[in-house]
């Protein structure tokens, strides 16, 4: 089940929230959340519930043991390693076994048959959540949870289990047992949820339609698309991937606020970043901070000399790439960023320090734009065709009627989507809110937006979702 499906909004969410607000104690509310999360997870195939239970059990049991043996660091460390190996083992088996074996086969000819292993929903996300929890307990940053079902709730909570954000246990631990839902926060949660829903159902889904007009075909079809079509397609993909993924985070944060959880922001308008380094501080924050805290810093970060720093970065970015999918293009995509981040630190930051901000912004967008093309094509030969075509090397002209038509018919929409990637609208609204006291019109406009806005957005999104064929969240497949 995805957040932007009618069955989620009008069946699952409606029923869950109804029961949730009906029961009174925090314990009952947690049970409602747990049961609904398990139903939510089971929706994609109840067989994977077993996996979720097993991994939760490991991640519940190990930290308690680590705590018990905290006086004997060697044993505690061994326990931690065992826990991580077990959890990562599941991830590697389900996500990477096919990839590893098919590469092995192309090198050695063995094994004959590559097993087809389906990827359990959300495994990449909850594995990382569990690992962060175990490490945090080992580091003594958080006390282990004694109740198994609360760890299960942490791992499976439907707000985040499918596509993040990767919330740390420390950020949730307190609120599992003690949380208050405040009226304004529920209101803000509703806003975030409705905005996320529209971002996904209307904006991201329309972007993908335009992008797919040009990029979705086979190699032969792709080589027939004129250069302008490929650029437009790639640009729409760039918009789509942000709108899609940040929409999911918006909805998760909104759902959290409605029941009193405060999840950290996962996106901070990444496309307004002034450098690639900054882009990664604004893009999928919960993932990059995971790699920073649990890979980069344990490897020594930048404290062990220049060579080691570069090596550490290399490891982090290869892993970041790999996390996004079991395919070479994702690894290349990660390493592509490794190259730019190192270049930025070593060369650009010194040599082009005085370049105007606009140049830095443009350079960042160009790097990110080509990054997404790498990201888009899991098939490397398609990727080649794409790059050749973008520079007119497929010999089919610059543009055609299809491209002009797509542009004309969607110009306002594209402009709105670009706006949607920037904080302009939010800033205008906030500025208006600040002037509410003195300006009566602003005051009533604000009230109208606040009261009716989310419901209007919900209706618009519902219209878009009825009879919509393309809907899955992009990031849910990682």
């Amino acid at each position, binding site marked *: 089940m995805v957040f932007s499906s009618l069955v989620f909004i009008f069946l699952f969410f409606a029923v869950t929230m*109804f029961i949730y607000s009906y029961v009174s104690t925090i314990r009952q509310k947690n049970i409602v959340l747990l049961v609904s999360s398990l139903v939510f997870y089971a929706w994609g195939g109840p067989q994977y519930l077993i996996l979720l239970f097993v991994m939760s059990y490991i991640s519940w049991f190990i930290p308690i043991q680590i705590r018990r043996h905290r006086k004997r660091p060697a044993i505690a460390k061994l326990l931690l390693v065992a826990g991580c190996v077990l959890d990562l083992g599941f991830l590697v088996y389900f996500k990477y076994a096919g990839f590893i074996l098919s590469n092995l086969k192309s090198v050695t000819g063995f094994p004959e048959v590559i097993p087809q292993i389906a990827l359990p929903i959300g495994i990449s996300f909850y594995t990382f959540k569990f690992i962060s929890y175990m490490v945090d307990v080992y580091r003594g940053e958080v006390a282990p949870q004694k109740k198994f079902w609360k760890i299960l709730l942490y791992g499976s909570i439907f707000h985040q289990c499918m596509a993040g954000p990767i919330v740390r246990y420390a950020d949730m631990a307190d609120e599992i047992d003690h949380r208050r839902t405040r*009226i304004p926060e*529920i209101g803000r949660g509703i806003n975030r949820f409705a905005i996320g829903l529209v971002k996904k159902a209307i904006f991201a889904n329309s972007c993908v339609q335009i992008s797919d007009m040009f990029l979705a075909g086979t190699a032969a079809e792709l080589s027939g698309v004129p250069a302008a079509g490929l650029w437009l397609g790639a640009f729409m993909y760039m918009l789509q991937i942000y709108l899609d993924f940040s929409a999911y985070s918006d909805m998760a944060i909104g759902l959290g606020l409605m029941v009193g959880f405060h999840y950290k922001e996962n996106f901070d308008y990444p496309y307004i970043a002034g450098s690639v380094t*900054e882009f990664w501080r604004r893009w999928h924050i919960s993932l990059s901070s995971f790699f920073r805290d649990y890979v980069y810093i344990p490897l020594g970060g930048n404290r062990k000399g220049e060579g080691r720093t570069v090596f550490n970065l290399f490891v982090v970015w290869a892993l970041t790439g790999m996390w996004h999918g079991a395919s070479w293009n994702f690894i290349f995509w990660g390493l592509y960023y490794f190259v730019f981040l190192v270049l930025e*630190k070593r060369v650009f930051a010194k040599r082009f320090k005085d370049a105007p901000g606009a140049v830095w912004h443009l350079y960042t967008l160009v790097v990110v734009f080509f990054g997404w093309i790498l990201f888009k094509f899991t098939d490397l030969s398609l990727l080649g065709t794409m790059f050749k075509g973008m520079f007119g090397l497929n010999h089919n002209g610059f543009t055609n009627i299809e491209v002009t038509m797509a542009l004309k018919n*969607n110009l306002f929409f594209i402009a709105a989507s670009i706006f949607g990637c920037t904080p302009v609208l939010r800033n205008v609204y906030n500025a208006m809110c600040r002037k509410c006291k003195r300006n009566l019109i602003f005051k009533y406009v604000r009230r109208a937006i606040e009261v009716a806005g989310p419901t209007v957005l919900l209706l618009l999104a519902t219209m878009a979702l*009825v*009879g919509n064929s393309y809907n899955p969240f992009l990031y849910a497949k990682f």
Partner: protein
Amino acid sequence: MDRTDERRPRQPGRRPKKKNYKYYKMKIRVFGASIFIMAVIALILPLRPKESEVEKRTLATFPSFSLSTFLNGEFFTGVDTWYSDTFPFRELLISGNNKYRSLYGFGSTTLHGTIQEADAIPTEKFDMTMIISDCGKAYFDDLENRMKEKMQAQQDEANAIDNASGGKKRREIEAVPEQVGSIYISGDTAFQLYYFATGPVDRYVNALNRLANKVDDSVNIYDIVVPISTGIYLDQKLQDELGCSNQQEAIDYVYASLDERVKTVDLFDTFKAHSDEYLYFRTDHHWTALGAYYTYCEYMNVKGESPTLLSEFETMTFDDFLGTYYASSEQNAALGSNPDTVVAYIPKATNEMTFVDSDGNEQQWKVIQDVTDWASSGKYNCFIGGDNPFSTIENPTLSDGSSCLVVKESFGNAFVPFLVDDYQTVYVVDYRYYPEGITSLIREKGIQDVIFLNNISAVSTDSLVKNIEEIVDY
């Protein structure tokens, strides 16, 4: 060194001022209530539509439960699909969505589907004897062998059925839903893009030539290939930009390649001359009865007889027709607000007909049926009861034993009524659904004129030409 300051995400949980609580509460109530109301409406099963008239398809049904589909999640996916596919007020919501989607840009033209690459239309007529290259020869030898094998296989199968049931041989009917390829919409008019395909066209020509050699010399065979609206209404430059093949060249190629025994009816110039008239629907891929009437006139011309004047017919008019283009453009708003009008001309001699439906039952029907109360997508079905395997129209005012057989796809429906006054019996075969061969039919009924009527797109469509081959060879 970083160029920008570290930006921390805003910490949530700031407490707004108390006085706003009233509106926050109001917001929560409005939002909660609308979710709740819609949730309840969505659970009222009788409100859920079962089929979509516009899209001409049955909507998803609730999945049947089994342990294996439950465990692998297929059951839930099915529930998902069912829930959203049959959401109450579905068509209303979709058309609402299309309304605001028309604000996306300022263009009045759209494309549904993609521009494809058409085969080049050969400039030489298709002729087996002209194939000199070994490669080409091998290709056609191969084609012939395959055809022989196929016919043999069909024969064997038919014999087997004959032996088993003692009944009449029937070919396998695969109901292929009518496909409209890529369509181009300009303002309130939609056009189907036409792409020439050498393989099917050559096979079509071959099939007709084979038929010509199979039937008695006394039987006249006519071939009518109808251009589609794109070729008549759009200028050549735009057609080129859309990658469309030149329809006149395509039709010329077909006609030139046909055996001399097959008489052809050239429509292109006539249609071009009348291109300011309502020859084709704007929201549907068919032609109007007016387009069919000009075709009838040209046909009578070729036959050397004079056609009935249009003014002599009584008419029936059906408004609010939204056809296949409307459906396949996902209910384009401009088409939706400008529906077509169907005008039908009732034969002077009779309006009675009989047809055999796909289950083999004979039914009485009207040549022009009153479809005023029918769904807006079904108005073209006023002509001869739509697509039926086999239909017969007897003219009570004639007793000269004259008869014709129209072998057609759905374009023929609007054409057939005009023939009623000129023959004692008009037989109609829809080659997509007719379960037998037509050679025996022609012989048994003593048919004098066999008229093949196809739109140019059908002649270039593999699955349809396959059906024509089957009814010819069977």
